[in-house]
């Protein structure tokens, strides 16, 4: 809420750089901004700092802000008390395979919904919309029984499979495909290109930003996914990072373990934080879809 956009003719005008004006700008502009940013950044900074501290610097009544002698011991301990390397690899596989399949399925379904003629298309779309509103959380028990019955307990495919159907990606890409001008497809149609070629040569290339949005949001949610991998795995070999971190929490429940747990948290949080820092525009757009009034 900038107060200086339109100078009110009635009020005595302040000069642009008067002390009163500067003070107002600072208090109205920067102080709340800095405050809000600090509230978010400080806990994460605290996590990073403590992951480099020695137990003696954490188990103390005197608050030590910076690690006195930065050490990687906590990371080493996290890697050796539980198979963290394995968790990391599992998370990478689950995220890579799950996201790739989901994005491809979303592109195919959205294309079919928009560009292929089919009498019951709107019914199919409504079914997808409804699925969008059914949270995975209410399905955990039936899916557990189903997947465990198929022998999928403690397997990576058991973790990946139930989440592969994608209502969110389909919905988001459909909305984007609808905005594409028909002319670009008609040209390709006249050239004799079939649907497959039209999709990958025309529609997908011009939709890359939307596909990137879906891909990034999917990667984030696959990486962070917790409730399902937690239920379907109970052996360390098949656990993903968030589940592995829970295992670490159970073994390091004393005060000295906090450094190790912070190191583990860094390993879970940092990859997504880096991806987010680089590509936040897409991620924010994807996650706040549907919110813009109009």
């Amino acid at each position, binding site marked *: *809420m900038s107060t200086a*956009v*339109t100078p*009110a003719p009635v009020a005595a005008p302040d000069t642009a750089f008067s002390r009163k004006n500067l003070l107002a*700008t600072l208090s109205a502009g920067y102080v709340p*901004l800095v405050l*809000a*940013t600090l509230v*978010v950044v400080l806990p*994460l900074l605290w*996590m990073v700092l403590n992951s480099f501290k020695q137990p003696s610097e*954490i*188990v*103390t*009544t005197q*608050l030590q802000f910076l690690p006195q002698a930065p050490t990687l011991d906590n990371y080493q301990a996290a890697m050796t008390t539980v198979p963290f390397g394995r968790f990391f690899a599992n998370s990478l596989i689950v995220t890579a395979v799950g996201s790739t399949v989901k994005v491809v*399925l979303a592109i*195919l*379904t959205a294309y*079919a919904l*928009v*560009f*292929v*003629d*089919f009498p019951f*298309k709107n019914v199919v779309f409504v079914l997808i919309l409804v*699925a969008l509103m059914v949270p995975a*959380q*209410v399905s*955990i*028990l*039936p899916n557990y*029984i*189903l997947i465990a019955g198929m022998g999928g307990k403690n397997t990576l495919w058991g973790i990946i499979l*139930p989440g592969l*159907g994608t*209502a969110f990606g389909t919905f988001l890409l459909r909305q984007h495909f*609808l905005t594409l001008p028909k002319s670009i497809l*008609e040209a390709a149609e006249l050239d004799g290109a079939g649907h497959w070629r039209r999709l990958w040569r025309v529609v997908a290339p011009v939709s890359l930003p939307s596909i990137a949005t879906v891909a990034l949001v999917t990667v984030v949610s696959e*990486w*962070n996914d917790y*409730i399902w991998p937690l239920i379907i795995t109970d052996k360390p070999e098949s656990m993903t990072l968030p589940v592995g*971190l*829970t295992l670490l*929490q159970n073994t390091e429940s004393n*005060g000295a373990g*906090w450094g190790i747990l*912070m190191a*583990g*948290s860094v390993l*879970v*949080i940092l990859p*997504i*934080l880096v991806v*987010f820092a680089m590509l*936040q525009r897409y991620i924010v757009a994807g*996650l*706040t879809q549907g*919110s813009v*009034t109009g």
Partner: protein
Amino acid sequence: MTHTDISRRTAPPVTEPPRASVTAPERRSARRGWSPRRRRDFLIFLAFAAPNLLLIAVFTYLPLLNNIYYSTLDWTLGSPDAAVVGLGNYVTFFTSDDAPRVLGTTAVFMLFTVGGSMALGLLVALALNTKARGTTFARAAVFAPYVLSGVGVGLVWLFIFDPGYGVLSWIFRSFGAKSPEWINDPQLALVMVIVVYVWKNLGYCAVVFLAGLQSLPTEVMEAASLDGANGVRRFLSISLPLLSPTTFFLLITTMLSSLQAFDLIRIMTPLGNGTSTLIYEAYLQAFGAYNRAGYSAAISVVLFAILLVVTVLQLRFVEKKVHYA
């Protein structure tokens, strides 16, 4: 935006490439009202959409039905035997201490997480809605917790709340007070989880509110400001009413996600002592110590019914105002 013009389009017969002769299958399908082109498109539609639709059917729709079925059973998870008890599990839930405890916790959790993240989100959005340098960074920073792993975030805050070695305990000590037992006291545990949930989610509300604020017509604000309305007055009598579609959208979406909150509760209070919301109770009953699959399914159905009501509310009141298509 016209959102159904392409999808409702029927096969344009004009662009059909000329055919040399009418083949036998074409005549057959024509009798059924399906031209070869339609039939081909139907097959293409299936080839493109069927894998996804099948997965959604098996892992999203089927579980809803199975949940209802399981909820009628007295069944220990892993046991081959189950007895049909009809509505017994529901009767048990609603007549025991479980219903007031779990529904009460769910309501308190939802009220404070929704209220907290929306109120603070709006404040942060107002702070972000300036032309000051650094707003882009601040906006990203504030949104970041929303995309981070709930498990990681939960552990970081568990450390901050730790009564022995956490930052908060140090602050309490520096005032000569003793740190509360955040985890062992059921009420304080709920407060703790709510605080962290709000921290993680307020950035989402802030960014959505900010988009709403920036879409407000500037002319109205300028006119009001010429009329001598100050910032607070302009906000209360112009921005806030104009923001109501955004506010309602956020109210619904944050209610839905609050009802589904699991990660933070699981990592910060594994036993659910004071923090057992519907979703967490359903988890504990089936996968905690009890293995009561039927009872857990019944709680899941109750949760789903509540989610359904909220969703229907959304569809009835927001569809016109919220930009979906």
